[in-house]
């Protein structure tokens, strides 16, 4: 009951840690403003700067002086602005950890005067600390082909390691023992001038690495390239087979070849810009229609081939089929499925509102109607997923009023008659579940953006944790997980896409024993979503990795449309080596990617302010698909009565039974279908 009682003597209260001090000392420590009438006006630190080796220590001495120059009995605070590189103790003992130019700070606390008007200590000193790089231990010239030919050129590089074992990137000076045989250009090209032997040397900081060259006479008499005279669509990858031949017609091994392309575009293409490219492995892609001539050169020989590129002409128009408008709050993710009763349903989440998930009957996409609403203790239901058997749904919780988030499992076996809560699960998920996935009777649930927990959901009314996966990289974060054929593909910002064997890989992983297979990263660190997909046309395993970023101003409660940034990175996944290699991208300028889906070699992207994007991803993929005419359609859902008016901001798509379902942050659920355009148009061609 409400009480006014006071216990003058505490039940038990005892200190621990330091030995108890006499009360008068403690009081003076804790309360008293220093009694000195003089304010510190000068701080002298010796030495005033330091030069140290890694691991070396040094002691700083400090003296605080008053306005008369007299030394004061005042404590000095030391700290480092780069404590992982150079540390300093409260007593001023410095230790160098890593090379570089660093700064230590010493300051004298201001002990007098009106405390509420001060901003910081006025008496402070910066102590520059130079920690020298360890000497280089080795320089190694990168391996060169076993056969080298006079008159050819090829790139050459070197790597350096210092005595601590760290990789270094010094400027290398290149030299040759016989410049008549070989030299290295300023841009790192090894120029092979004549037959003979030579040693090239890369030097840095007095350390050298060498490569002995044996340059043979050039046996090549011609270059062959195929195919020739073919026709391809813009965006198609044409694999060029080029080789140098000797007089007997034999291929010359290791013969360096370079590719160049020039184009004659149709007269109706204006200012076409770069119209095609060839990558070093011989992958040719045309971005514009026209006659493209590829020149293959090496050692003074050339060959050429021509490829006629025609417009891809895959453009479709869209038609709005139906809607489930949500205008009073933001909408998040969606899932569409065929229910156990044979009817089709969709569930959509809500963002920054009151914890609602909406269930829609979409059997007739032209007549979408709400069949039930579930409200949970959350402000955001960011993600919604339905089990593959259609029996239960999982919705995520963030912003719970009691700060206990987690997830909720729902019985969706008969949504028409009502969706009911089967279970709530928040154990070790209180920090918020941003994303979930359901596969093989297990729920994969992100926990506070740091890891994912794996819950057994054989009995969805009683899920329980069987495993978890968390990276061990510094400062790791996670945003998304998607399970495909027993491999969990998570999206991890700077750690990129990570593949984990949870039963479908070769590492013996299982939900209760997930084992990391590999990963691929990219420089921006914007990896937000990933969709694993095996190409129907090539059989290659691909990973579509979506960015998310907001470099421009953004106001979810404002009136102006918002803008995002980022694109879709497409990587070929080496299933033997467990690594991805980015080969292509799909980038809509001035917009930002979000959730995505791939089906039947078609990519569907919720591209935030760029709307829904539909992209042909058949065949091999190279370069920027946006510029190649691979975009099939885009649709920007604008609702004059939306939560933010006429402001498309597509969250996620899902193709389902010939229609495309999508959620828009500002206007809810939409259903569209693609139709043949009345007038075919190759979007992107500057006609």
């Amino acid at each position: 009951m409400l009480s006014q009682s006071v216990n003058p003597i505490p039940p038990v209260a005892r200190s621990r840690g330091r030995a108890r001090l006499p009360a008068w000392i403690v009081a003076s420590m804790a309360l008293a403003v220093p009694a000195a009438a003089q304010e510190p006006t000068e701080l002298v630190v010796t030495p005033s700067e330091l030069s140290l080796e890694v691991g070396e220590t040094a002691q700083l001495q400090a003296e605080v002086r008053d306005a008369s120059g007299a030394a004061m009995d005042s404590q000095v605070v030391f700290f480092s602005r780069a404590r992982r590189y150079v540390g300093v103790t409260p007593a001023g003992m410095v230790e160098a950890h890593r090379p570089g130019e660093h700064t230590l700070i010493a300051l004298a606390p201001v002990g007098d005067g009106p405390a509420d008007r001060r901003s910081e200590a006025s008496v402070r000193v910066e102590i520059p600390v130079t920690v020298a790089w360890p000497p280089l231990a080795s320089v190694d010239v990168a391996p060169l082909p076993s056969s080298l030919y006079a008159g050819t050129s090829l790139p050459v590089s070197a790597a350096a390691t210092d005595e601590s074992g760290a990789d270094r990137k010094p400027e290398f000076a290149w030299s040759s023992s016989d410049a008549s045989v070989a030299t290295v250009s300023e841009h790192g090209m090894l120029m092979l001038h004549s037959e003979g032997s030579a040693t090239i040397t890369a030097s840095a900081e007095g350390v050298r690495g060498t490569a002995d060259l044996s340059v043979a006479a050039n046996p090549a008499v011609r270059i062959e390239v195929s195919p020739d005279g073919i026709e391809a669509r813009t965006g198609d990858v044409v694999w060029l087979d080029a080789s140098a031949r000797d007089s007997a017609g034999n291929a010359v091994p290791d013969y360096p070849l370079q590719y160049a392309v020039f184009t004659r575009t149709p007269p109706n293409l204006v200012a076409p810009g770069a119209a095609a490219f060839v990558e070093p492995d011989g992958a040719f892609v045309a971005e514009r229609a026209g006659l493209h001539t590829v020149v293959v050169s090496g050692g003074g020989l050339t060959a050429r081939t021509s490829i006629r590129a025609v417009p891809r002409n895959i453009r479709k128009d869209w038609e709005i089929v139906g809607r489930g408008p949500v205008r009073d709050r933001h909408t998040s993710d969606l899932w569409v499925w065929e229910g156990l009763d044979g009817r089709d349903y969709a569930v959509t989440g809500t963002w920054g509102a009151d914890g609602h998930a909406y269930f829609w009957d979409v059997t007739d996409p032209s007549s979408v109607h709400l069949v039930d609403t579930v409200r949970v203790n959350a402000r955001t239901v960011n993600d919604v997923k339905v089990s593959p058997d259609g029996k239960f749904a999982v919705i995520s919780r963030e912003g719970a009023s009691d700060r206990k988030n987690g997830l909720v499992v729902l019985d969706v076996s008969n949504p028409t008659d009502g969706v009911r809560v089967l279970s709530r699960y928040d154990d070790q998920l209180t920090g918020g579940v941003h994303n979930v996935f359901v596969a093989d009777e297990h729920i994969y649930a992100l926990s506070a953006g740091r890891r994912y927990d794996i819950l057994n959901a054989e009995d969805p009314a009683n899920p329980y944790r069987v495993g978890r996966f968390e990276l061990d990289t510094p400062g790791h974060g996670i945003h998304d997980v998607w399970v495909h054929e027993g491999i969990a593909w998570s999206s991890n910002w700077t750690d990129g896409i990570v593949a984990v064997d949870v039963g479908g890989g070769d590492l013996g992983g299982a939900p209760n024993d997930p084992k990391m297979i590999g990963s691929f990263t990219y420089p921006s660190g914007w990896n937000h979503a990933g969709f694993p997909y095996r190409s129907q046309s090539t059989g290659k395993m691909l990973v579509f990795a979506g960015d998310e970023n907001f470099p421009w101003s953004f106001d979810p409660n404002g009136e102006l449309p918002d803008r995002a940034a980022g694109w879709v990175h497409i990587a070929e996944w080496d299933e033997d080596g467990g690594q991805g290699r980015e080969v292509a991208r799909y980038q809509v300028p001035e917009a930002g990617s979000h959730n995505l889906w791939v089906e039947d070699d078609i990519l569907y992207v919720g591209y935030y302010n760029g709307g829904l994007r539909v992209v042909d991803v058949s065949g091999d993929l190279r370069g920027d698909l946006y510029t190649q005419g691979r975009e099939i359609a885009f649709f920007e859902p604008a609702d004059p009565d939306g939560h933010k008016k006429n402001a498309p901001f597509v969250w996620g798509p899902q193709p389902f039974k010939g229609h495309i379902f999508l959620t828009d942050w500002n206007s809810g659920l939409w259903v569209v279908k693609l139709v043949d355009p009345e007038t075919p148009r190759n979007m992107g061609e500057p006609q």
Partner: protein
Amino acid sequence: MTRLRLLALALAASLALALPAIAEDPEPPSRNYFVYVCAESDDTVHLIRFGPGGTDEIDRIAVGSFPTETEGPHGINLSPDGRHWFLSIAHGMPFGSVHKYETGTNEWLGDATLGMFPATMDISPSTGLLYVVNFNLHGDMVPSTISVVETGTMIEVATIDTGVMPHGARMNADGTRLYSVNMMDDELVEVDTLRFEIARRLALGTDPPDPHAHHAGMGGMTGDMGGMRMPVVKPTWATKPSPDGKVYVAGNGDSAIYEVDLGSWEVSRRFDAGPGENPYNLEITSDGSLLVATYKSGNRVAFWDLESGSLIAAPETTRRVPHGVVVTHDDRYAIVTLEGVGGEPGTVEVYDLAAAERVGEVNVGKQAGGIIYWNGEN
């Protein structure tokens, strides 16, 4: 609702009815007072003015860097010279951060990445260093840290090992000591802000702790305690020291307020808030005569006379989940945040301290929590 709870409310109602007889009629304010308020589930900070013209919002600042994710602005404080305000944002990728803004213009100036769920903070007036507790509310039950940030460069220059779920951070007058609590360790700590280390620890509550204690109140503490002692007091806040050397600690778990004598480093008094009230944040007047407490579960703001140790009043709030509280520089008003539940807005309430009566309110963003007073001058 339990019978005990009904009795408590009935008594509270009778108290509230009795209070006007001892309270003065509030004098209207003669000047403007300002507070910055965090809305944790809207990623906004609100600048609120209370004055002769009433209570109104004069600016709403969107904070955070990922607008489609709720990042959770939680703690806020002002530099001693009033030129800057600092904001902790709980969630990042995954670490939280602290941000620096210019007061008045509310222009963002810089940030620093800290630990998990950085929360309450305070700045030493003698060094300008900012101390932010890394609450790690949702993490494993492992000891966390207090980050030390150089505010000129916004660089984290030190971390101080403290305890499990540190929360609350308030300085003594000269900025040489910081008082904070470790919620799941049931302890108050005193930080030597010049040596970046814990100077003293004080165990709160019963010893040994009651293993069967009911863990109500502050949310988010589930999971295996790994063999650790189960907390009972679950302290959530420590005030700045009063002029006579007392720090007051909110016992959110055992619904009490503890007075700690800094001289003897012992609990000198224990104020029983009553079952189900769960004090959360506290503030004292500059002369140390009055303590204002938010009762998170009781949905009340309590006013305690610290001289007599008696409760003056505990009016119900207009919305659920009271959170933060500040007292104006002239000790005339207490300003309180109310989180609200679900899609409800948060609310800022103003209480006249002489009358212990609510004199203003205004809605802000969802889950209003952290609050700091600004007197309107830089």
